[in-house]
């Protein structure tokens, strides 16, 4: 068992060298040593209730529970953790914010802290401490959590989504490697369809998958919902080009994508009906965990999103920030827990448990073992760095979050791709909806 002392912890080096393999008793020992030196001391008798999003990779949940257990034991803080689906986290957090009770901390989706900036504990000290210690925060993560120079929460991680494809199908389509630009990607999708090994991307009300890829197409054409002053600029020639490109892509898709929710592409891919889609690493993890899908797992690879005419990455990745409410009786305990979550000793172990589903938002974790032990995970390591904030070039906040939750961009593309509206009609409807939100 690794024996961690206060001196060893302060000196770093030896103790933290072994940190990447911290589990069970070693984790507890580390937690105890950390508790002695921690900048934030939990209040005596602290009790914290934390709501988080429901895990998609079981091992991530196990690693997270181990962190909670070690924190509880080392600090004497009583913690109650419960999970909700992604979409239920925000309404329940809002109820807590409104009533001023029920929860101390919430770990949810991208702009969550921006919804109630006056109800959260400012995390400037925690962000400064962690940022300095671990090489600084990635740009999109910081923008997601900051308002007027204050940190409203801490961006714990990013749930990265990338191209998931069957290598054999891509090679059969005549591509030695996954295309890196929009024209190449379209050609590949056409070839995949011709070979009856189609691609498919959600065009239904799929919160994560549909929003991610349509925003990638939109932004890749240098088209945006709003400009930097939050003026609605969706109705533009660039958007029209994005619509045309998307329509050409959609014509190559497996039928039914207009009805897809977030789970549909996972099912179709694992069933062997789908050969290229955009997703978190969960498809690959599920295939790898199932002995019957050994061949499929071996044939499954990941690639970065191709670059559009804009000439730089335009990825919408899902940041998952954590916040503490300012009505909590135990703000120090909350800050201490957040600090503990992101300390290297267990954070890297946690990333390993997530198997690539979570990507670090602190630069020092770029070299975490999770990204090298299976090369197929490697692209996910870049999710936080390549991501744009969910608002694009506009202001991060509740309006951007509302536009995404209302599927405005998804519906614009779906309207055009399914033939329900022409380009002008689809753009006009989206413009009208965005003006409603940004009024």
């Amino acid at each position, binding site marked *: 068992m690794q024996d961690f002392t206060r001196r060893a912890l302060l000196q770093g080096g030896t103790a933290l060298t072994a940190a990447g393999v911290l589990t069970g008793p070693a984790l507890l020992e580390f937690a105890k040593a950390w508790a002695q030196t921690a900048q934030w001391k939990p209040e005596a008798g602290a009790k914290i209730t934390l709501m988080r999003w429901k895990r998609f990779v079981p091992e991530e949940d196990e690693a997270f529970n181990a962190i909670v257990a070690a924190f509880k034991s080392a600090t004497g803080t009583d913690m109650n953790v419960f999970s909700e689906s992604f979409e239920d986290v925000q*309404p329940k957090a809002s109820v807590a914010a409104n009533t001023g009770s029920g929860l101390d901390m919430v770990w949810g989706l991208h702009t969550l802290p921006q919804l109630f900036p006056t109800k959260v504990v400012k995390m400037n000290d925690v962000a400064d401490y962690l940022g300095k210690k671990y090489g600084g925060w990635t740009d999109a993560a910081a923008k997601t959590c900051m308002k007027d120079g204050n940190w409203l929460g801490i961006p714990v991680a990013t749930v990265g989504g990338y191209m998931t494809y069957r290598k054999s199908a891509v090679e059969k389509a005549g591509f030695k490697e996954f295309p890196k630009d929009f024209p190449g990607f379209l050609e590949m999708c056409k070839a995949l369809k011709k070979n009856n090994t189609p691609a498919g991307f959600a065009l239904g009300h799929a919160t994560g998958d549909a929003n991610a890829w349509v925003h990638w197409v939109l932004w890749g054409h240098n088209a945006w919902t709003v400009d930097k002053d939050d003026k609605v600029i969706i109705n533009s020639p660039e958007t029209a080009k994005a619509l045309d490109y998307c329509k050409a892509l959609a014509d190559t898709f497996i039928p*039914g994508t207009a*009805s897809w929710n977030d789970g549909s592409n996972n*099912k179709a891919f694992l069933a062997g009906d789908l050969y290229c889609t955009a997703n978190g690493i969960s498809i690959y993890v599920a295939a790898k965990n199932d002995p019957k899908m050994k061949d499929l797992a071996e044939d499954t690879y990941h690639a970065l999103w191709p670059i559009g005419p804009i000439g730089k990455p335009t990825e919408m990745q899902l940041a998952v920030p954590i916040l503490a409410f300012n009505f909590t009786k135990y703000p120090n305990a909350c800050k201490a827990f957040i600090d503990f979550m992101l300390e290297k000793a267990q954070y890297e172990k946690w990333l390993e448990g997530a198997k690539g589903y979570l990507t670090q938002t602190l630069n020092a974790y770029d070299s975490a073992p999770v990204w090298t032990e299976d090369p197929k995970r490697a692209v996910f390591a870049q999710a936080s760095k390549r991501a744009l904030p969910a608002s694009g070039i506009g202001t991060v906040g509740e309006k951007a*979050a*509302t536009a995404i*939750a209302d599927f405005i961009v998804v519906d614009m593309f779906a309207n055009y791709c399914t033939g329900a509206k022409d380009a002008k009609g689809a753009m006009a409807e989206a413009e*009208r909806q965005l003006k409603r939100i940004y009024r």
Partner: protein
Amino acid sequence: MVDIALTPRAAKSQMREATSWDQLKHNRNWLGFWFMLPAMGFLIFFLAYPLGLGIWLSFTDTKIGRVGQFIGAENYEWLWDDSIFWLSVTNTLLYTSIASAIKFAIGLYLALLLNENMPFKAVLRSLILIPFIVPTVLSALAFWWIFDAQFSIISWSLKHLGLIHQNINFLGDTTWARICVIFANIWRGVPFVAITLLAGLQTVSPSLYEAATLDGATSWQRFRHITYPLLTPIIAVVMTFSVLFTFTDFQLIWAMTRGGPVNATHLMATLSYQRAIIAGQLGEGAAISSAMIPFLLAAIMVSWFGLQRRKWQQGENND
């Protein structure tokens, strides 16, 4: 009987006028009021207050997480020009009218059938309740699978029978998606109509049918002149509730399509939820919900005034 001489003081005491409190305690009208008070409390607190709050919210810019300001009819003005809102209104009316009509037709047919003497009548009556006792979300998930674009059992069967060559895009095509959600609603709602109408049929005296049979009435004539008129009041009640339940349906749609594809199955209830809870625009969501009230009131009024017509209830021709 003993006469008792009252002292002036006692007499004065007995003669005193009843106070307001005495009246409140002993007056029969006030007594009725006291008995009604708990019910009124429930109605005000649990029915009127949420309704009033919802209407108030619709005139504010309240967001989830913070209190809003009064903005007059702005939410309604934006909705007036909102094509998705009007699409949801159209969808709701279409969904309600088609599903309610078919539910009534099938429900009435089943009720008449189950009212006849047949073997295993009790078992059959129980079986018909199955769709009603299955939790809505569970049946919605089952239909979601049945109509899945890739894994539909219907497409699979038809393909294996050689009748189609590629899957039917049930939930990905706007027309098909509307048909699918209406079908699911009908499946779910038929038992309510059938069992309630069956209960109504049970109250019709067999002697009426016997007399009509002796008079040589055909089965259609017996239905037209005995069953239908006597069943009319319960039909009014059943259809009112059926229309209300269908108009406000949420779970089936949300679990099956989330309003897609391209908002083709968004009902007012689902759009309200999406805007209010998912997108956080509580005021606007409340305005969409409040916009449902006139339609629902109209449905109630039709039934209410129908039930007030006593002659109609008694099976006579309307004035």
